[in-house]
């Protein structure tokens, strides 16, 4: 075993092992998708407050140029994903269905699409505070799906010390291979990103966590690892939802993030590999985040693969290039376990989207339709990664006792991984009912 390569054949206690379906895209190199004639950049692609536009309608923008400023600490700036002209700033539909203000840019089709850089910066010479500010300027958010502003994660809360940076390359969702390809192809950038983050939070070590179905990526990461690096690579057994940060910390470090707490409470910062790859690539040259890798896959597309897509590219454009089959009936942003299905194809691809899964009628027809009564088999209890009692919660939800679910059965600890619904032999939509319960509870609290 090469030095620094940590083989761990363990995982966390529960969860499920759905069929991975990664074979159709895992071996395909990342390809660049062409620029669409019109790009739509929503002002809120991240968790937090929306950015404020700093361009006018009719203004020409160069690829990489800032077009919106951060609004407060929990916010990030935006950069032009393409060279063109700002056509309008108006309400446009987004992936969750609601309308949001967005900057619409018409692409100059003839432009060379060179990226606008600022003067490069020396990462080694910067203090942690300067690094946080620099990260914020790049507009990088968590690219693993949560879209949580990265610079916020790098600010160590008072009274806490972070000793470990955990790099999340598990990608436990079926179908998706984005992180796999990024680890394989951008190993140098990832190591550079790790260095930046490690310095910003003052961690003494970093662990790259991945699963043993991505051993080629492990090899690539190990080869590009510098000798002096304190980074170790650990390989876990595939298990869903291993990518959930609390479970990853438990599996690797045996530390338990307290209920309602964050990884910083146990001295860990968790970042996704794709986030670090982008950071390592663009931060030293003061560039902004303008594109990301997504997996377009599923039985409903002709050419599944991993594509480098400019942020703001309409979904319909991306699907046209991947070859949408006529019998496709469902388009899902993200993986099949937690992704949400989209209502129309005019919405733009944003920072938090890891993949597009297109299913055909043949797939959706396989889903069970008949709901049986709960037979108390306990499968959901064995599957729930945080050891809730979904069976009991489901009974309470059925009776509308939403408050009891929260006060007595830890409803708010549920992070909606969907394992309970996946295993339920009675086909009860458990996690769906929990979402309703949470929404009802929120509504009740705001009403009070």
């Amino acid at each position: 075993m090469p030095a620094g390569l940590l083989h761990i054949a363990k995982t966390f206690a529960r969860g499920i092992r759905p069929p991975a379906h990664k074979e159709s895209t895992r071996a395909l190199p990342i390809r660049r998708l062409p620029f669409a004639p019109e790009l739509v950049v929503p002002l809120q692609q991240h968790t937090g407050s929306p950015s404020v536009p700093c361009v006018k309608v009719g203004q020409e923008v160069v690829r990489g140029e800032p077009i919106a400023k951060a609004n407060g600490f929990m916010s990030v700036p935006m950069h032009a994903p393409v060279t063109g002209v700002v056509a309008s700033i108006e309400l446009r539909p987004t992936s969750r269905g609601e309308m949001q203000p967005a900057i619409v840019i018409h692409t100059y089709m003839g432009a060379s699409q060179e990226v606008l850089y600022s003067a490069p910066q020396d990462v080694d010479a910067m203090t942690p505070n300067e690094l946080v500010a620099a990260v914020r300027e790049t507009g990088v958010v968590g690219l693993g799906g949560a879209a949580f502003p990265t610079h916020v994660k790098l600010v160590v809360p008072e009274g806490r010390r972070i000793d470990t940076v955990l790099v999340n390359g598990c990608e436990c969702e079926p179908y998706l291979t984005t992180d796999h390809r990024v680890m394989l192809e951008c190993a140098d950038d990832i190591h550079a990103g790790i260095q930046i983050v490690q310095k910003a939070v003052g961690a003494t070590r970093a662990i790259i966590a991945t699963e043993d179905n991505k051993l080629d990526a492990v090899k690539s990461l190990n080869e590009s690892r510098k000798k002096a690096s304190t980074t170790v690579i650990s390989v876990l057994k595939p298990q869903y939802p291993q990518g959930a940060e609390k479970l990853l910390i438990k599996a690797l470090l045996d530390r338990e993030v307290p209920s309602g707490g964050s990884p910083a409470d146990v001295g860990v910062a968790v970042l996704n590999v794709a986030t670090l790859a982008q950071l390592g690539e663009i931060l030293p040259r003061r560039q902004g985040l303008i594109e990301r890798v997504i997996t377009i896959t599923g039985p409903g597309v002709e050419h599944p693969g991993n594509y480098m897509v400019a942020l703001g590219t309409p979904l319909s454009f991306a699907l046209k290039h991947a070859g949408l089959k006529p019998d496709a009936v469902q388009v899902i942003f993200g993986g099949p376990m937690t992704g949400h299905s989209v209502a129309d194809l005019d919405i733009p691809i944003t920072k938090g989207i890891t993949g597009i899964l297109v299913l055909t009628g043949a797939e959706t027809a396989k889903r069970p339709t008949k709901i049986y009564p709960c037979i108390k088999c306990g499968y959901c209890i064995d599957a729930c990664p945080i050891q809730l009692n979904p069976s009991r919660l489901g009974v309470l939800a059925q009776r509308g006792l939403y408050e009891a679910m929260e006060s007595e059965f830890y409803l708010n600890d549920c992070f909606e991984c969907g394992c309970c619904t996946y295993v339920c032999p009675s086909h009860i939509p458990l996690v769906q009912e929990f979402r309703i319960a949470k929404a009802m509870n929120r509504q009740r609290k705001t009403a009070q």
Partner: protein
Amino acid sequence: MNSDSLTFIFLNACIMNNFVLSMFLGICPFIGMQGNLKTAVRMGMTVTFVMVIASICATAVNLLLAYLHLEYLRLICFVCVIAGAVQLVEMLLKKKSPALHGALGIYLPLIATNSAILALALFQSLNQYSFIQGLAYALGAGAGFSLVLVIIAGLRERLALPGAPDVGRSAALSLIVAGILSLAFMGFAGVGY
């Protein structure tokens, strides 16, 4: 096992001849009870407590009536003495231990007229138990009563699920459940012989 031994008296009253399941005594409270496990435990404790009082009263009354040769007044005396004693204990509890009164108090008047209590006193006289045997009998009966109360309270949650047919809800289903429990307790028939 000797049928006069304290262990046997206790087990017999608790399990083999459970007051609720084989003698149908004191059913009213648990058919109507809507409470959860906590209520059941408290109520069971109260019943046991009152049974012990009733047992002590019964021993005293029996001695007195035998001395006066007035056995035919036994029933009237039992009724009055037990009701009075429970009332007295309630007042005492209220004064001395408000915490305990808060836990048990509300059930006390309800239970004073429960058939299980009077039956305990009557059976105790019928079997001519001594004072200590009477106590064992009261504790066993109380424990058995509490056991059934707790089991039914636990099951009630299951019975309250939507989907049960309307005709089967409430009293009828409680009775059927008691019937099944009674079948299950028949497994212990003959213990000690």
